[in-house]
């Protein structure tokens, strides 16, 4: 999957969960400080990505999901692991 496509999909998913316009979810906007995300929304973002891409992200990664850029990077890491597992 193209990186840009992955970023756009995850941006839309996050925007839907936190009820913001996707244009506000810039790569480096901080979820907690800038976008008003709370811990339950963070959990929903994590679960939403797991469901959409059929991957499992461990609990300790939750704190790394602080911006769109970091979230995409974590998703990419586990997508790559999944693809390696199928190869």
């Amino acid at each position: 999957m193209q990186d840009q496509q992955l970023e756009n999909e995850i941006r839309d998913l996050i925007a839907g969960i936190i009820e913001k316009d996707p244009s506000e979810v810039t790569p480096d906007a901080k979820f907690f400080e800038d976008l008003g995300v709370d811990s339950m929304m963070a959990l929903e973002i994590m679960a939403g990505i797991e469901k959409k891409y059929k991957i499992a992200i461990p609990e300790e990664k939750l704190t790394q999901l602080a911006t769109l850029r970091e979230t995409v990077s974590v998703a990419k890491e586990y997508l790559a692991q999944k693809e390696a597992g199928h190869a």
Partner: protein
Amino acid sequence: MPEIGIEEIQKTLPQRFPFLMIDRVLELEPRKKAVAIKNVSINESFFSGHFPGKPVMPGVLIIEAMAQTMIMLFHEEAAAPKEKAAVYYLGSVKVKFLSPVFPGDQLKITVEPLKILSGAGIVSAVAEVAGKEVAKGELSFSAK
């Protein structure tokens, strides 16, 4: 695990009349699956107002039954002494109501985790009457 009766349920759930929304737990695999039933009687206090002459179980109380079944997933932890027991807070609810529930119906509620972290989680919940889905959706919660 064998069925869990109402006395045991009350050790886990803090809710009481008129807000205890499950009568028995039929199946329990801690943190994996909980199945509970709620027998819906015309004597339920909410039927006097919802609605006079046309009793329909309020959807929010079906959600409450789902949430209480969800707490039973954590039966062992939740049954800790009261001072230590966690309080479970609903974070968000996405539920579709598919069919009304009437006096005489038996609700069967199945809850399974989608994602469980320490102190928070998301579960899927399905409520059925006589094998037919009447409500289903997802609940997220935190425990403090």
